[in-house]
């Protein structure tokens, strides 16, 4: 616990908060985007907005894989679970996410469909070995942190010649999402969203390293600081961003030196590159179609690709018109700007994915901020 609790010390947080207050220039604003939903929750859980001067504003980014998965892909998974020969293995986060027609994986399970919660891709493999007469499909979602375990499971399935295991692959890429935000009309022209710098996700970066962000820093002149997830990490990183902006620098700095290197985890990257390849196009909830932003299973491993094995088709869906998730994901709106936030849409009865996920901005506001925002 030393390396968790040590980074939560209240006195140090207070000291950092004073340093930040001393260093901000009062004649300007600092709009910093925390890309990762894990950061959004850490920020609110530890009350970080209250430790920052008023002109340092945090903009919440799209780094929540549950939130950015389009409803159409979730519908596909539910349809697959409808096959009585299929055991659908899913990470727990996905179960309560609302799909089309008020459906969800949890509803499917209530109707007797075989949906199992797994905490690791390995558990899905074990399910397949334990149920040789059933088809086990891993509903794989997540950013680069979660991708290597999926790739490893496919490799192991190949080594074991496990014919009843396959993967419905929905892995997405962080740099593509950041670029999509920087290229979005809201940021580039309309001025609805201002992002002056990024708190980069440290857990994603343990895998991909800090190098992939160098492009954004140079090309878009936005500083990036790879930030850990404990409150002192976040405060230190905010201070590093403010310093860069004060100096007129736009560089990639790494606050999470204890886990992230420039090149990342070569072994995990090689494994992913061996099994998965870029999709020419992936539709994100909120961000829309982003070229080369998702991963699919390579031809050599196609026998483990559930989309091929079950000839899955993606159908267009109508989003709930009242739900502002897409705008929240892009950082255009705050959860409290949504008319149904906290009234119709609550964690118990979520309308949108941002209210379900433990990384969703709406869930963070509901849990930690709903009274504060009300005044």
């Amino acid at each position, binding site marked *: 616990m030393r390396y968790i609790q040590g*980074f939560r010390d209240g006195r*140090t947080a207070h000291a950092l908060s004073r*340093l930040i207050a001393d260093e901000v220039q009062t004649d300007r604003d600092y709009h910093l985007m925390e890309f990762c939903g894990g950061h959004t929750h850490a920020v609110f859980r530890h009350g970080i907005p209250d430790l920052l001067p008023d002109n340092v504003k945090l903009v919440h980014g799209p780094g929540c894989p549950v939130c950015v998965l389009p409803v159409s892909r979730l519908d596909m998974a539910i349809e697959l679970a409808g096959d009585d020969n299929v055991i659908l293995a899913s*990470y727990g986060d996905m179960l309560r996410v609302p799909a089309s027609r008020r459906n969800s994986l949890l509803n499917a399970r209530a109707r007797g469909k075989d949906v199992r919660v797994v905490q690791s891709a390995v558990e899905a493999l074990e399910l397949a070995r334990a149920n040789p007469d059933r088809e086990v499909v891993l509903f794989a979602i997540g950013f680069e942190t979660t991708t290597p375990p999926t790739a*490893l499971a496919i490799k192991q399935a190949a080594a074991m010649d496990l014919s009843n295991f396959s993967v419905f692959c929905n892995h997405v890429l962080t740099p593509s999402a950041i670029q999509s935000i920087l290229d979005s009309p809201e940021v580039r022209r309309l001025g609805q969203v201002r992002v002056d710098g990024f708190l980069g996700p440290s*857990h994603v970066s*343990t895998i991909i390293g800090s190098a992939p962000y160098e492009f954004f820093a140079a090309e878009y002149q936005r500083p990036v600081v790879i930030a850990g997830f404990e409150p002192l990490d976040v405060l230190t990183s905010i201070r590093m961003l403010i310093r860069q902006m004060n100096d007129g620098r736009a560089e990639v700095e790494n606050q999470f030196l204890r886990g992230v290197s420039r090149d990342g*985890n070569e072994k995990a990257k090689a494994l992913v590159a061996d099994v998965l390849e870029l999709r020419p196009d992936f539709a994100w909830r909120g961000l829309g179609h982003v070229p080369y932003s998702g991963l699919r299973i390579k031809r050599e491993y196609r026998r483990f690709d559930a989309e091929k094995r079950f000839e899955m088709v993606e159908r267009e869906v109508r989003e709930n018109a009242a739900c502002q998730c897409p705008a929240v994901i892009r950082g255009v709106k705050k959860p409290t700007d949504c008319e149904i936030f906290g009234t119709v849409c609550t964690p118990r009865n979520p309308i949108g994915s941002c209210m379900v996920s433990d990384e969703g901005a709406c869930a963070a506001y509901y849990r930690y901020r709903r009274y504060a925002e009300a005044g």
Partner: protein
Amino acid sequence: MCLAVPARVEELHDFDQATVEVGGVRSKCSLAFLDDVEVGDYVIVHVGHAITRLDVEEAERSLALFRELAEKLGESPDAIYSGVS
């Protein structure tokens, strides 16, 4: 999804498996993405896999800096609230 915790490696098993410990809770985890992990090392664990080694030296250096900062500038956590309007 990308939540991960630092854990201490307690025991090594075959097939890149290990028993790791966080705050008294033990669980199994895969070390397939790392080389030469030894008992006593710290790793960061995500969905049952160690995704990176925790550099204890760097972590201790950060903690020492934080301690120094707290001693120089920090007030007790209660003092924070009085400053919040």
